[in-house]
């Protein structure tokens, strides 16, 4: 709806011929590199996951450059480390666009950091590529969203948990935008399916191990069927460890999450993570040649004991999707690039994905995984095809009551 006009003036795609390139860009003779911005926190409490997003981005850039660049020009990243400080993302976005003359930025994990970058890319008409699941209810013309929105993960997760474990959910989250908004959506889904929220706790994003002890005690007292966690960053490790320490059993009362990936499981210990549930578009164990190649190259580049995960995968495929669109238009001009990106498909490690022109979000696969002893996820459910992004949950009013999950 929001981008109806773009849908109509989506330019007919120039062919990959020299003619097309000359028509679309008079300066095609240059061999100067394409400069792109990269903003992930490689230090601070979000570094566990954002480091892997940085790696996914880096690997894709290297692959594009090894294959000869885009239109014969190399991709050169200008990267800053905002150190897990949301406000710093805004300042670095400003520096990238104003001082480094970059118009396309790849980055952000937390919603607070995305919202810090948003005014900058909107005012200066840049393009932020955001490779992280989030709470939905946003569609900026200056953002390409390549992580899952709630209809692509929360919905299926809620259904699976209610089918398998029961209807009484206990919410634990980090105290910022994403957990509160995700819980709002999850609460709504639960209520329309006859479930209930029997507890709701938030911890500071800087929470330490001991902050989770009273919560775990409360959980033992309340005895929910499921713990729904929206704890992110280091806190994830503390929550799962506190759970394991009191001897709760994931087979009975699992922690379910949208954010606990292979990276967090590795940080907490495979035995601690075993049996817990995550909904994601991608797990390392996904079958297919695109993923086999991705996992192999990722391990070769960053170490055999490092797993891929949904955030690294989204960072990886969005860079390739960007390069594919850039190859067609030969221009970093936001308007030109965006209209080419809309509708572009890519054979991602998770399967075929397409940027949905209706919302700038990506049609992704829905999967439910249960962590095993090897720190990997066994896929217990998955969609038959990519699920259309619906960030405003327009198609999911009361529809959940009649059971149309996917």
């Amino acid at each position, binding site marked *: 709806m929001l981008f109806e006009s773009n849908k109509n003036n989506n330019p007919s795609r120039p062919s990959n011929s020299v003619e097309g390139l000359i028509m679309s860009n008079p300066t095609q003779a240059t061999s100067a590199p394409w400069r792109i911005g990269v903003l992930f926190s490689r230090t601070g409490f979000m570094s566990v996951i954002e480091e892997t997003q940085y790696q996914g981005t880096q690997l894709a850039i290297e692959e594009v450059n090894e294959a000869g660049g885009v239109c014969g020009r190399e991709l050169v990243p200008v990267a800053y480390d905002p150190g897990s400080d949301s406000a710093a993302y*805004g*300042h670095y*976005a*400003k*520096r990238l*666009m*104003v*001082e480094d*003359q970059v118009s396309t930025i790849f980055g952000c994990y937390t919603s607070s950091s995305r919202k*810090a970058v*948003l*005014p*900058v890319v*909107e*005012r*200066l008409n840049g393009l932020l590529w955001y490779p992280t699941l989030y709470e939905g*209810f*946003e569609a900026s013309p200056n953002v390409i969203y390549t992580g899952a929105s709630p209809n692509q993960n929360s919905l299926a997760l809620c259904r699976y948990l209610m089918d398998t474990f029961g209807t009484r959910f206990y919410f634990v989250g980090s105290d910022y935008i994403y957990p509160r908004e995700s819980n*709002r959506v999850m609460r*709504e889904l639960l*209520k*329309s*399916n*006859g479930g*209930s*929220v029997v507890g709701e706790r938030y911890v500071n994003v800087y929470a330490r191990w001991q902050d989770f002890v009273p919560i775990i005690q409360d959980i033992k007292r309340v005895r929910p069927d499921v713990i729904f966690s929206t704890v992110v960053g280091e806190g994830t490790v503390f929550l799962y460890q506190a759970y394991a320490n009191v001897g709760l059993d994931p087979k009975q009362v699992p922690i379910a999450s949208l954010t606990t990936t292979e990276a967090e499981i590795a940080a907490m210990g495979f035995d601690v993570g075993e049996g817990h549930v995550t909904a994601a578009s991608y797990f390392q164990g996904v079958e297919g040649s695109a993923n086999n190649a991705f996992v192999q190259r990722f391990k070769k580049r960053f170490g055999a004991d490092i797993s891929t995960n949904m955030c690294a995968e989204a960072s990886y495929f969005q860079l390739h999707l960007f390069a594919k669109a850039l190859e067609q238009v030969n221009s970093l001009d936001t308007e030109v690039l965006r209209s080419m990106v809309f509708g572009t498909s890519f054979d991602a490690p998770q399967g075929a994905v397409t940027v949905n022109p209706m919302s700038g979000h990506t049609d992704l696969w829905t999967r439910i995984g249960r962590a095993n002893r090897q720190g990997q996820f066994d896929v217990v459910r998955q969609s038959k095809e990519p699920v259309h992004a619906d960030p*405003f*949950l327009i198609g999911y*009013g*009361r529809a959940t*009551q009649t059971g149309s999950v996917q």
Partner: protein
Amino acid sequence: MNEQSRKPSLSRDVGGRKTMVQELADLSAVVVAPVDDQVGMLLRELQRFRMRVRQVWPMPESVPADADVVYCEYSPDLARRLPWIPGDARSALVVILPATEAVHADALCHATPNAVLPRPFTQNAVLSSLVLARSQFGYERRLRSKIEKLDDNLRSMRTVERAKAILMATRQMPETEAYGFIRRQAMDRRVSASAVAAAIVDSFELLGYDHQQ
């Protein structure tokens, strides 16, 4: 309140609406420029509009932004010196342009001014830059707050829809009546309709209404 103390010409407004000139009075301005004949004239003009004016020079590393309007000399790195990130400006910005020295288009664009004032100044140019900057800045701010409210409404509408459905099912109310009920409760309690709706949805859950019926 102190309309009486103002110049007679200022209170000639009809229908209680402030004139532009009245709106300008009591605003604060920072002028970041070296004092020469031109800037002297600018300062006098602003003072003539009864604005509280402060002049600053040399150009500080971070441009002072504690004013309603900031007049700032152009410089190629102006955007970097502004204390806010683009899209989140706290003051209306007028960039003073040099008469002959070349201006870099991208640098000007990145500073996101609300108006420009090219040298040499005239009284008309000063007035128009001021009026334009105020009006553009205000309009942009209103649009942003409108978008924020729309976002909020979008979320609360889902809650209101659910509450309405609950009322329709449990109290056999027709749709319009259910909405009227929510609105009346909101007015009586002086809270938003979405707060009432959330309370209905919550209590519905608490009472353990059987969903499968």
